[in-house]
């Protein structure tokens, strides 16, 4: 690749990274606000219940501590993935500032992969806990614990694992690059 071509590629990397940096900010906002909006602003946000272990109407009908506790438990996976996206945002921020082949940036990528896996693994648990909390005050026989694990969860786990392996390989490449740089 010519020097001019390399400069163009780097320019494009910086431009796309800046764009993705702001997309990540929107994704964090989306992750944190979606569940409270679904519950506290009925009709404003239409939710698909296919990913939820309890119906939106059931959660909306709850009162007091039960509603807050259910919401808090339902928010745990959102906070985990929001943190992952926050780290991904930091990685794009580093790319946008021309810090590309760097241990810290690779670390952010790895953290995103870990967050993805943790979020997928805890989702069924928080789903079960929120269904238990939501039906806690119901009469005997109507309380339930619902655990949901779908095909997409397996895909997400695979993707998370893939990201961690790629980050690990990139980390090794950075180490070799560092070693080469210390040779004159």
């Amino acid at each position: 690749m010519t020097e001019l071509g390399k400069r163009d590629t780097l320019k494009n990397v910086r431009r796309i990274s800046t764009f993705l940096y702001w997309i990540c900010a929107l994704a964090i906002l989306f992750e944190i606000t979606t569940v409270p909006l679904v519950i506290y602003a009925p009709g404003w946000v239409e939710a698909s219940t296919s990913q939820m272990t309890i119906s939106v109407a059931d959660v909306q009908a709850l009162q007091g501590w039960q509603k807050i506790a259910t919401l808090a438990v339902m928010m745990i996976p959102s906070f985990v993935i929001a943190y992952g996206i926050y780290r991904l945002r930091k990685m794009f921020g580093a790319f946008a500032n021309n810090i590309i082949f760097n241990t810290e940036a690779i670390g952010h990528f790895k953290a995103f992969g870990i967050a993805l896996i943790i979020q997928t693994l805890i989702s069924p648990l928080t789903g079960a806990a929120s269904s238990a909390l939501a039906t806690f005050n119901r009469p005997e026989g109507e309380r339930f614990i619902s655990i949901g694990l779908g095909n997409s969860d397996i895909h997400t786990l695979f993707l998370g694992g893939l990201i961690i392996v790629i980050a690990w390989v990139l980390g090794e490449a950075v180490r070799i690059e560092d070693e080469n740089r210390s040779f004159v």
Partner: protein
Amino acid sequence: MPIIVRLDVMLATRKMKSKDLAARIGISEQNLSLLKSGKVRGVRFETLAAICRELDCQPGDILEFEDET
């Protein structure tokens, strides 16, 4: 590190400035300074050959092994 870099001695013997040597062998002054102070992990054969060519010496004149034990 038991390897001692004697580049400063060779430069003094040849009455050459670090700046000139760095320019002739195509490395930065900063890297040559790091090499002179032994603060590098290694020297490429390519760099060593260029230094030997410019200073008209052998690698053994620049690098020395000193057993620390």
